[in-house]
């Protein structure tokens, strides 16, 4: 099997070109779903691979409670540099799990704090208008009820400063955008991809891609609800311009002028509606690219799974279990 057992650890690299292609050719809804699924599968495979490496490489070390049989010479022959890889897998796995736990805990804490902050405002409506001159607008996802505590519905927190700078129609676009975040449960996609990034840092770039695509998705929903793409584009643009922070010195001058997320969103809204179908016709360049991307994705996911399963089978054969 050789070095192929390490494949699940590096295969996440292939997601990046796929993300690029998907962004160009798919509706943001499709892109978000595709990338999240990919990140989740690759993240799982990579964790599985780390766990198995750790078992194989370290089971026979004195002091390790795992049965020695799990690290049979035959098994170790299948894994190159079994001992080194096993030893390296321990801190890697520990780091991955700690990062996941931290991210989850932080997620819960921020949600709880935000809901607690919004509690004094009257319930009934999902919108909380906060008397604050600082312009901001956030979608606050609901929380499920746990341990006897009732769940909380999702809310939209908008500052008065933000509302003041938008006219009535633009406010409608803003609310439609935030409501789309809540209704389509974008926070779940974001959390899944975030955890995948914790497990394997090579998946981190997928997070920014999914963040951007959930925003685009909500933009498209908002444009559909208010029935005016240009209006939605103007709302996004105006909100960004009043909320702008002081430009970061230095960086902005040297960085290649790659447009940031907001101009890209506005440009996309000023362009025609992206195709609603999730698959472009097969005989166009876009269709071919999508096919190639899909094939690549399937291949990466399959080989990751294959490597993980093969390692597992070798282990199982060598143990009395």
């Amino acid at each position, binding site marked *: 099997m050789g070095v192929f057992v390490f494949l699940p650890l590096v295969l996440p690299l292939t997601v990046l070109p796929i993300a690029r292609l998907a962004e160009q050719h798919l509706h943001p809804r499709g892109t978000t779903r595709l990338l999240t699924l990919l990140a989740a599968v690759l993240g799982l495979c990579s964790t599985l691979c780390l766990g198995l490496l750790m078992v194989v490489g370290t089971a026979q070390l004195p002091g390790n409670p795992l049965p020695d049989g799990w690290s049979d010479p035959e098994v170790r022959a299948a894994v190159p540099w079994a001992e080194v890889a096993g030893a390296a897998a321990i801190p890697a796995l520990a780091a991955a799990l700690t990062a996941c736990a931290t991210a989850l805990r932080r997620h819960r804490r*921020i949600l709880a704090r935000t809901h607690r902050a919004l509690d*004094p405002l009257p319930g009934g409506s999902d919108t909380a208008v906060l008397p604050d001159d*600082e312009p901001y607008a*956030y979608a606050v996802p609901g929380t499920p009820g746990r341990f006897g505590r009732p769940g909380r519905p999702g809310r939209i927190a908008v500052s008065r400063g933000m509302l003041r700078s938008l006219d009535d129609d633009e406010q409608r676009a803003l609310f439609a955008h935030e409501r789309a*975040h809540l209704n389509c449960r974008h*926070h779940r996609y974001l959390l899944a991809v975030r955890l995948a990034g914790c497990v394997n840092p090579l998946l981190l770039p997928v997070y920014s891609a999914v963040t951007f695509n*959930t925003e685009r998705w909500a933009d498209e929903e908002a444009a559909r609800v208010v029935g005016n793409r240009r209006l939605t584009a*103007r709302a996004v643009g105006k909100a960004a311009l009043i909320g702008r922070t002081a430009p970061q010195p230095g960086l902005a001058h040297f960085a290649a002028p790659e447009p940031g997320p907001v101009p890209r969103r506005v440009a996309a809204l000023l362009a025609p509606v992206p195709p609603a179908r999730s698959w472009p016709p097969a005989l166009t360049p876009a269709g071919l690219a999508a096919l190639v991307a899909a094939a690549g994705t399937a291949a990466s996911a399959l080989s990751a799974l294959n490597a993980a399963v093969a390692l597992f089978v070798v282990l199982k054969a060598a143990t009395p279990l």
Partner: protein
Amino acid sequence: MGGTPFGKERSRRRGQGQLEAQVLAALHRSPGPATAAWVQEGLGGDLAYTTVMTILSRLHAKGAVTRERSGRAYVWTPAADEAGLAALRMRRVLDGERDRDAVLTSFVSALSAHDEQLLRTLLDRATADEPAPGTDPEARGG
């Protein structure tokens, strides 16, 4: 505003945030600056005086109420209403949590100088060739 009525059965399991909001609401019902004893009475007397004092001090630390010495005690005035308190706490979450963007999806993200320029150009161009108001040939589908 107007203060939320709270039954006694709920008084046992009230979170800090709810207590703060309640005290603030009671303070709002006062025609002028109020003493802690007045607030305690306004709440139906089911909170200990020391609890009311603690909550008032906490609100003071947050800038939600102001106080003035009058004789041997303080008199308290609300600096902000419940919505103001909510805004205050919301700001603390937004300023205090580094990773909040991962949980709360913001309508727009920060712009770089180059982004700002680009955005202005885009919007200007959009306004320039805007069709008659109310019609949008590009919005279709349902």
